[in-house]
């Protein structure tokens, strides 16, 4: 399990973007159009508030995401304004043409992944000292 620090973008602070990304990642498997109202699951990964006030996704690179035929990834892609049009098209094409994929295969190039120890070193998480 690793951590991805979510930076704010226009219209979203770190927390809002983190929550939105997490829900849209879940919607790849269960789009709102097919979601049962009784279903409990609503997001993919844990969200952690950092000491900096920013938010982080606690991710599993090898988590297998099953692709639902009814998916629409427009909202997900819109949360990555830093991607070029070519990169966005590549991301959409990869997701839409997969039955399932590992999460690490859609992490944008240049994204920093941190271990728990690295997050402690950066003083973004506080260590729980146990007796």
């Amino acid at each position, binding site marked *: 399990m690793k951590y991805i620090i979510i930076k704010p973008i226009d219209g979203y602070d770190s927390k809002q973007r983190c929550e939105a990304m997490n829900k849209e990642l879940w919607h790849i498997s269960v789009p709102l159009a097919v979601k049962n109202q*009784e279903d409990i699951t609503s*997001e993919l*990964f844990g969200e952690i508030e950092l000491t900096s006030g920013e938010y982080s996704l606690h991710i*599993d690179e090898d*988590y297998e995401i*099953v692709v639902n035929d009814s998916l629409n990834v427009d909202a997900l892609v819109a949360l990555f304004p830093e991607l070029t049009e070519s990169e966005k098209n590549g991301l959409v094409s990869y997701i839409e043409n997969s039955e399932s994929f590992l999460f690490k295969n859609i992490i944008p190039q240049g994204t920093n992944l941190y271990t*728990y120890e690295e997050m402690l070193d950066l003083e973004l998480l*506080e260590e729980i000292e146990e007796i």
Partner: protein
Amino acid sequence: MSFKIGNKQANRSYLGSNSINKVYLGNTVVFSVTGQLVADYGTGALIAFGLKYLSVYYAGDVVRVRRSSDSSESDFNPTEVTDGTLTTFVGAGNSGFVTKWYNQGTGGGTYDATQTTSSQQPQIVDSGSLILRNGNASVKYNGSGQKLLVGTTSNIKFTHYQKSSLFVVQQPSQSANPETLYWMTGTHTSVSSGRRSYYVRYDDRSVSSFNNDMVHVIGNNGVVVLNGTKPKPQNIWPSNSLSVARVYSDPANSTASQRSKITVNNAAFLMQNTDRRNPSSSNAAGRLAVGASEQNQTTQTWGDCISAYILYDEDVYSDDADIYDDLETMYI
């Protein structure tokens, strides 16, 4: 064997003014209260999670499961958990994850335990097979963030104040000496605000004086008390076997040694003084975690299974022997 007074079947027995649930003749039970399950002692457990029925007053579904193949979810009762209905729903080779553990206790649905985050949902079916411990269907945690969270706010005596009684049929790990600390349940709040709650953990660190111990940790604004057994022989409670943990918490008790009591299986209770000050009201903000010590914990959560979890919002110590007897009969 029945116990009759005249021609009438007895359904309650007393010693003085105390109600007795079982009467023994030697090692044989000659009387037991009929129509009562393990969550029905006292005024009834507030919270009772299991994959078997734990209360005669509950007859609904016990678990909601998400299958890995398409993330569809469905509810199951105890019969459906074990008769193949659940594994058929999940499908051959697939996995099933617990999204909701229904509360069978008196607290009702407010105290259901849920997990909305798919990667943090504990498992009940692995590669198409029901997860079993001692032949019992069990909920399995991965030790790396999987947990269930009770209700919307905790507001439970175990995590705050007054008397409570906790019974958990559990197995901390799949190996005997994993050199790890596992958190089972609690509302241990953020480190920045200090330890201000109670939680239970299993310590398997050889460097720890509590190695191989189930430990009740009582924290109050920086004052921390640990109640666990020490010193003990190595592996007296091995982490890779199913056992029954019982914790009685009564921080305001005028008798210091009665404020925390803990044991595993049939060992004598360990008793410990605790800080008597009421923990901060901020404890109420944390949701009670099952499989972790607090809702935001992402590392070193519970490492293997919980088969049953019963929390009374009262002291049922006078019924302890019967409750343990019931759990041992059902699970061990």
